[in-house]
């Protein structure tokens, strides 16, 4: 083959690739634009004012295709279980993860920057104004606010790539919104594992849930291929393991039980939702038989809400509820919704 012919083949291939690449990007862009267009059939979402901390209201992130995709929206909770089509009021704040309590919101955002993804945590007041913004080291995963609204916690996935060595770990931070004192990583806390002091380089914390005293919290500790439920104290900077195979704990409003996801098969991404009684350490499987990969939220002392991927869709998710005592059947609470925060 002559050099000229080779160059010609390469030029044709480059042009073909450029064409195919452009087509794919344009297709994805038009799909993204399409998602942002209002669509008939889904739940009605109208722009308006969302105010956090209004008793009885349920705030969440809209996953419905339309201009308010990923925005913080609210429904009057009294109507929500009865009618999934209840009109939703949308704010102009959008997040990847969200939670709110007592008028304090935490919104984790992620946007593509020039060289890397730019991730940040926004602390919102009741009118969704940003009080403070904190840069994040990785992709947002979980967010929680204490019942008093004083503490906020978030978990991000930190990834790194370095000449063929990828690693993923989690980093969990806790913020006191009264003093703005930030605990950047729970990994600096003293760990008591099965009654003994424990240190390891591979410790990961994720999925914080706060108790009502603004000091006690629950979280997942992952180390040595195992996961543990830990109870921690923010003031003493300690965590103590309680039981194994617990991820993404969520404390009930009365503080007596933990809803959590339990890995069904070691190594497989399959989880079943359980409730643990903190008094007896007895576990009760809930009536949801699908795999739940979410940090559940208690709507009240007897109902647990969680998200599942929407049917037939890779992105998008719906909110489901199930009784917390293992009885009953799952119930679709809100289609096209994520990150619920009962007020």
């Amino acid at each position, binding site marked *: 083959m002559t050099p000229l012919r080779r160059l010609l083949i390469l030029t044709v291939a480059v042009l073909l690739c450029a064409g195919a690449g452009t087509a794919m990007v344009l297709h994805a862009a038009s*799909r993204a634009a399409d998602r942002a267009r209002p669509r008939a059939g889904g739940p009605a979402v109208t722009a308006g004012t969302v105010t956090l901390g209004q008793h009885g209201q349920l705030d969440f992130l809209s996953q419905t295709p339309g201009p308010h995709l990923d925005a913080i929206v609210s429904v009057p909770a009294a109507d929500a279980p009865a009618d999934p089509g209840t009109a939703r009021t949308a704010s102009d704040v959008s997040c990847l993860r969200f939670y709110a309590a007592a008028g304090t919101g935490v919104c984790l955002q992620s946007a593509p920057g020039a060289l890397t*993804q730019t991730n940040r945590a926004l602390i919102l007041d009741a009118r969704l104004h940003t009080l403070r913004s904190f840069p994040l080291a990785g992709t947002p995963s979980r967010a929680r606010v204490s019942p008093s609204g004083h503490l906020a916690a978030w978990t991000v996935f930190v990834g790194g790539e370095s000449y063929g060595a990828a690693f*993923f*770990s989690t980093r969990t931070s806790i913020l006191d919104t009264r003093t703005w004192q930030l605990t950047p990583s729970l990994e600096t806390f003293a760990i008591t594992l099965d009654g003994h002091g424990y240190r390891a*380089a591979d410790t990961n914390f994720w999925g914080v849930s706060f108790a009502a005293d603004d000091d006690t919290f629950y979280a997942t500790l992952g180390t040595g291929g195992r996961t543990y439920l830990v109870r921690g104290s923010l003031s003493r900077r300690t965590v103590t393991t309680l039981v194994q195979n617990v991820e993404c704990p969520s404390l009930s409003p009365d503080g007596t039980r933990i809803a959590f996801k339990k890995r069904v098969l070691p190594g497989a991404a399959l989880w079943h939702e359980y409730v643990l009684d903190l008094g007896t350490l007895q576990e009760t499987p809930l009536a949801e038989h699908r795999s739940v990969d979410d940090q559940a939220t208690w709507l009240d002392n007897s109902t647990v809400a969680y998200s599942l991927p929407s049917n037939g869709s890779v992105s998008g*998710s719906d909110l489901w509820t199930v009784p917390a005592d293992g009885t009953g059947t799952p119930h679709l609470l809100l289609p096209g919704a994520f990150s619920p925060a009962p007020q």
Partner: protein
Amino acid sequence: MYLADRSAPGGTTPVTTGTGARAARVIGTTVIALGAVSLITDVSSEMVTAVLPLYLVAGLGLSPLGFGVLDGVYNGVSALVQLLGGHLADRARNHKLVAGLGYGLSALCKPLLLLAHSLGPLGAVLALDRTGKGLRTAPRDALISLSTSAEHRGRAFGVHRAMDTAGAVLGPVSAFLILRAATGGYDAVFGVSACVAALGVLVLVLFVPSRPRGPAGPRPGAARGRVDLREALSLLRLPRLRALAGCATLLGLTTVSDAFVYLLLQRRVGVGEQWFPLLPLGTAVMFLLLAVPLGALADRVGRRAVFLAGHVGLLTAYALLLWTPATLALPYLVLALHGTFYAATDGVLPAAVADVVPERLRASGLALIGTGQALARFCCSLAFGAAWTAWGDGPALAGAAIGLLCCAAVAGVVLRPAPAR
């Protein structure tokens, strides 16, 4: 000097340093073509790597934590596959074919990413991608060495590594450009990545000769029949290769993995959260800038000197991380030293290996060193993690620094120039 001893075994005719015409051809088109292949392939794979965590979490709603566990396994497999790739290339006497298979396999994985929607299949696709990387490394480096005369190999490998790293820098930039144009367009990122990877394979097929015209003339031993496993194993009897393999492995045992370096940088120096994802870029930029000058320097002053100096740079980076002087320049300094370490060692080592391995076993020899080094670094990661667990990050790093100092001293003695003949 010892490493660049011109009278390579296996009967390679020593190359006399050249005339003007030869000097113009010191970096042959083959090296440039292979550099272009690596650049294009790295753009493709780094595009995927850059968006993968976000794709898993935001696109698929999965938790990427499980990957960390598998990563060690993949690295081990990739290291062993490298040995296989090297031996197969020598055996088939077709380095281009085996390298092409490796590049092709990785390219095939990119469209497969679009079909994998859960952790299991995704893990399998990424493992396959790593296998491709393992297969191609040794035959590609062998091609670079076979198409360059001994006294210019440091520079040739430097050119290749610089182009390779440029791709690693450009990849994430293109991926985030696409994501900005199309929100949630992970499929577009993977699709474009697949196209780019296919272009890389095409450049290899079109512009890399299957039998590089070695500057040393006809290839010795070409008529001596097939390379078998026994002959490949006989490489271990070459004292100079043994010395190199031993030193590369020893030094690998005390080379803390990049992931740990960045974690240490953040923990001990307090680099802001938002900068954490950019730390590898710092290393890459320095590597990119210095790979060619340091490779050329290695050709001039000797590979041993530059290789050892690179490790001294790494040692200095460890020392700075231990000392943590209160200066704003510290993270830049550590990253600069880290990048310099790569620039002074990553291409210089294969250049040195090529000098002592006969042509017909070149890929096997390069694979042997590469595998030893990779497995040693893997062991270092395990040991470093355990030491961190037991004693904390400071003592673990101090241990690694002392280990590196000792190993570098041993390497300095073992690799010292042979007495003049």
